[in-house]
């Protein structure tokens, strides 16, 4: 069995990168030979795809019926504005220890030209905060008027999965036909988000023509690297150097903690099931 006194998770380095991105490096160990790869890969996947975060689901811009439209006197096209909006990062404004489960609300932006519109100009609900106020959204010339409204959701991967897992096969097929010009990845990897509440909502709101749809996946963790190093060549013990870049909405330390708990939950459920079936 594993010797417990050898286990360690230590943050070696942590710093703020440019554009508010956070970086941290961890050393995690000790593993027996081969275990490090199992651990490293699963924690990487968990960090990348299971982190909860705020998400702009759909945007409504006054005067734009589709995303390739052009607004009068605005330098950027609608497409660019959408891409810029995607760069904004939101965090819940709550005390640290409190758990933030789900949230749904709207954000507004209304500006008259001339001037530059930044993320700080966005009006947000009380509980939400923008951590990237410097992000440029659009440049308005004189006489321009930009007013937009977007739907903001806090999406928790594990929660949704537990609830909606059974609808999987049906909804994927639906999603494929339905999601139109939403930036779409269904045929590549039918990720589980597509089976979620979100899609049901999406189908409901479909009739309003001027809605523009954005990304459906929250990406608070932008990049994860891990390298396996051998600690002691003789007994084959290894450790992992884990590098994490986040978009600034959460600390890498938090994300690691969260991912580990998520993974534990996942494996624990299956352990229970297999015990029962035996």
């Amino acid at each position, binding site marked *: 069995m594993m010797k417990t006194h050898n286990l360690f998770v230590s943050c070696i380095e942590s710093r703020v990168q440019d554009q508010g991105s956070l970086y941290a490096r961890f050393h995690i160990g000790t593993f027996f030979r081969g275990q490090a790869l199992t651990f490293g890969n699963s924690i990487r996947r968990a960090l990348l795809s299971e982190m909860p975060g705020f998400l702009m689901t759909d945007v409504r811009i006054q005067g734009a019926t589709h995303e390739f439209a*052009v607004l009068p006197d605005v330098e950027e096209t609608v497409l660019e504005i959408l891409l810029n909006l995607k760069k904004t990062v939101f965090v819940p404004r709550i005390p640290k220890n409190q758990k933030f489960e789900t949230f749904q609300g709207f954000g507004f932006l209304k500006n008259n030209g001339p001037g530059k519109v930044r993320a700080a100009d966005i009006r947000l609900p009380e509980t939400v905060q923008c951590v990237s106020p410097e992000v440029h959204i659009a440049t308005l010339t004189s006489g321009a008027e930009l007013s937009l409204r977007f739907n903001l959701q806090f999406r928790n991967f594990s929660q949704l999965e537990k609830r909606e897992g059974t609808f999987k096969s049906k909804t994927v097929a639906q999603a494929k036909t339905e999601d139109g010009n939403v930036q779409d990845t269904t045929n590549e990897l039918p990720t589980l988000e597509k089976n979620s509440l979100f899609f049901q909502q999406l189908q409901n709101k479909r009739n309003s023509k001027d809605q523009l749809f954005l990304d459906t996946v929250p990406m608070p963790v932008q990049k994860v690297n891990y390298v396996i190093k051998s600690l002691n060549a003789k007994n084959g013990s290894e450790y992992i150097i884990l590098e994490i870049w986040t978009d600034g909405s959460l600390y890498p330390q938090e994300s690691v903690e969260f991912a580990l708990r998520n993974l534990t939950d996942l494996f624990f459920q299956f352990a229970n099931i297999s015990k029962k079936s035996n």
Partner: protein
Amino acid sequence: MSTRKSPFFKKAEISLASPKAIEIWTERYFPNGQPINEVTSSETVNYKTLKPEPHGLFCQTIFGPVVDFTCACGKKATKLVKNKKFRGYCPKCGVERTSSRVRRYRLGLIKLKQPVAHSLYVSHRPSPLRLCLGWSTKRLQAVLKAVEFCYLPLIFTTFQSERECFSFFPKSFLLLRSQLTQKNEVFLEPRSSGFNENLSSSFFFKEKKRSKRKTGKVFPLRTSPRLFHKKHQKNRPRLVFNHGVIEARLYGIAYDATWPKVEEFQEFLFYLWEQSFFYESSIPYYAFAKGVKSYKEEIPKREQSYALQTGGLALQQILSHHDSSRFEYDLIYLSKKVSMILEILKENMASLNLDYEDDQKEYKKLLSKVKKLDLLLLKWKRQRELYRDFEVGKTQPAWMILNNLPVLPPGLRPITSIGGLVVASDINSFYRKIIIRNKRMSPRNNLGIFDTTLGGSWLSWCYNLRQVQEAVDELLRTGSVDAGRPLKSLLDGLKGKKGRFRQHLLGKRVDYSGRSVIVVGPKLKLHQCGLPKEMAVELFQPFIIQQLRLQGIVFTVTAAKVLIADRKPIVWSVLGEILKRHPVLLNRAPTLHRLGIQAFLPRLVEGKAILLHPLVCPAFNADFDGDQMAVHVPLSAKTRAEALSLLWSRNQLLAPSSGQPQHLPTQDMVLGFYYLTCSLEKTLKRVDSLVSSRKLFFQSSFFLKKKNEETLKNSIPQNLYFSEFSQVKTAYDIGNLTLHTPIWVKWTSCVQTFVPERHSRLKETLLETRLTFSGQRQTLFIDTCQFFSPSFFFGKKVRFIRTTPGRIFMHWCFFEANAEMSSTPTSKEKKSLEKK
């Protein structure tokens, strides 16, 4: 003398040696001045005792003692020198008491009584000797074998030319005062006299000077050495061989003249051309036909000789009278003339009308003429080059004919008994043959008709000459078959894979070298190679021991060796430190050019194979199907510095032969690049599928919906827009994109596309332009779409390009990886990319 353990060579030169030079190599004297270098007896060793015979091919006097510091009498050298006169030499047997090692260095000498051609210069094609003389190969061989003859005028046979004298006694010889004996002082004397300052010293000046003083008369032109007169230098024989000015062949008499016939003819000529002496002038025949030889009354000395000569002697005489600078001048003049003629001929050819039959004939005739002249020009060019080579190498053509034959030191051609059986080197039998045959020859150049050395017969003399020539040929080149076994000549010992050069000098096993199979090391840097741990420990053992002792980990060499044998962890860390600044040389077997051996900084790897960077493979012409490479360790700091500055692989970016880049991706790398950069669109045959996707881009959502079903069938996701590369990367990391998914990315600077030819037109055509009421402009191509803001000149331009994540990663690897080096180690990044 040569007891030094390793003589230090600055350079080795292969060229012709003058007969004098050969003599100097072998020259050694007794303390009393008696020379000891000539091998006169064909004996080798006593067949019972295996002791060398005196004056034979293994003579201890000539070559040195067999046993260290012991003479032939069996007396050991003592420190007390009893007889100062014989210092080091045994007074009885004359053997120098030194180390027996000298038997490997000291050369002997065989003085050939008749000069013999060096067979390598005769047989090798194109033969230099043949080119010098301008003869055909057949004639040259015939003359060397004493079958054909050439006429040499008297001055050739009687007197040595100025050039020959000069070449036999080179200037450097005068400086070797220490080696001079009383005999040589003769040659120095005329130099002090102001009589003929422009000519080099020779024995003949002295004689001439003396005789002139005595007689006070000028010699008759015919027999006097007029060569040495300054005035008459123009009268020196000027040789243009091909035109037969001087040498007449005997073809007029009988082409296949046998030796007896030639002998008869010789005697006829001899009597015909004989000059009278003073006392004979009353004989009527002489009185009107010929000039009188000498007015002096003295005992007649016959200077007459056979007019027809053959063998190496004839060649030597001709070559030594050769004035190469004048000959070269002649050749240049002639070739200019001929090339002028050629031009005229070519003009003539051009003017001919080939429709007429006569002109056709004429044309053919002219063509053959031109061809012949072209050949002639080529030959002259070669001759000129050859003479230039002689000039540059400071050698003489006459040296191609051997007067002195050096004898290989006996240590290199041993006779030993192995298990009672006497084994002799092949070369000994060749030397024996030469010595025996040489004894039968006469040493004189000018053979009179009544010469005793002829043995009464010209015929037998010719036969002997041929025998000597053949014996020397066998020694130098051809070898012979003796008792059914081919004997190896000197040339056989040198040439080929088993020869001295390739087997022993170049193919030496080297210390501090290893050899192993190579495998690819894709993670290496260009300046690195992977060295197996086991190999590194062996190769760098002295360095490890040194370091271990310096660091005070061990105190003795043996302790260090034990530590290394146990492969203690400290050894690896020490070794790692050493390898950081110690390059190794890698070499692959056919080292055809300079890049066949390159220096790398080694990295320790597990296993037993050497890791090689894939980009340096073309230089080594290596692949990984089991190729082996040798590792060498430069030892001193100097060599290491040299290896890094000259041989380091990162300094060899361009091929020295062509200037082309050396490190080009090949094979697997190309395949990898292709996989990384290919797009799913490529899998679709029809281009209109691409176009339809573009239409989608601008259509309303209703239309889009319908179209989308169609494109989903094609399983290509449409309309993925990203504003930054990092977003693409994130999406890829999460797994939403594959490497080949077509995406749109905002990108403002240049793009290079590789479009197949049939698509190229499509690429360039403008698909759509939109202009809004507010003045914004959008243009759309198949691969790019551009947005212009209203103001025409200062409008911001935004451009989206169509690409794939794979292409973005490649771009990122090339252009942005370096920028990010400071913040993150790129190798890790790449690894995570490759893992997917």
